[in-house]
């Protein structure tokens, strides 16, 4: 029996994209991105453990515009993964499987993650001595 050339899951390219599938793959991609983001967390924590000089050096790296942009992306990925994760937990509990509900909760997750990300970064940029 030749097994080697059989298509293996997930072969996503044969499906027409729809909200539910796009949100699902986005959940996985934000998860991978957040996992990489823990490197920034470790960088910050170990710098704080390293003393004032190491911490100041780390702060100057984190203050770079390019890093800030990545952190904005990280913030959205976090709130998206959190909201959509709650959506998944509701499904696991057997709630919200109806097509209409699944679409409504999908749009709610998108809207909430974007609005909260804007609120957070509005607060950060407006904070006294904040990151201008």
């Amino acid at each position: 029996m030749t097994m080697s050339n059989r298509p293996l899951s997930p072969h996503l390219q044969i499906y027409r994209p729809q909200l539910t599938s796009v949100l699902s793959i986005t959940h996985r991609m934000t998860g991978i991105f957040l996992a990489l983001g823990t490197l920034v967390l470790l960088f910050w924590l170990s710098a704080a453990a390293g003393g004032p000089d190491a911490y100041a050096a780390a702060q100057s790296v984190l203050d770079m515009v390019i890093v800030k942009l990545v952190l904005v992306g990280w913030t959205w990925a976090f709130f998206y993964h959190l909201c959509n994760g709650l959506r998944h937990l509701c499904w696991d509990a057997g709630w919200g499987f109806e097509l209409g509900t699944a679409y409504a909760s999908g749009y709610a997750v998108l809207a909430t993650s974007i609005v909260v990300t804007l609120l957070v970064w509005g607060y950060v940029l407006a904070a006294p001595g904040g990151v201008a």
Partner: protein
Amino acid sequence: MSLRSALGRVKGLGSAKEGVGHWRVQRLTAMALVPLSLWFVLSLLRVFNNSHSEVVAWVSAPTVTVLLIALSAMLFWHLQLGLQVVIEDYVHTPWKQIAMQSLLRAGAGLGALIAIVSILKISLALG
């Protein structure tokens, strides 16, 4: 040599041969991370601009130390379980599968250790 019967050994393990352990722990760590990660991000909004001594004072508060360690453990555990499935889905060569799963576990374990040791070093004022 096990005294369990063949039926007893396989019951509840299903076609994946490992039962629902992975699925359940992924959900449990997710549920733990909901309050822990929200608390952490909201706290960061308060301390991100503070001086080193203020950050050290924040981490050193016993409640914060405990919550940060709990967050680190849950975070790296959840991360390992999630990325494990991604690798299972997309890597189809057995030796690459084993190598990447081992690297993932090593990386996640080291990450958790670095986080927890850093937190303890700050909190116990060894630095």
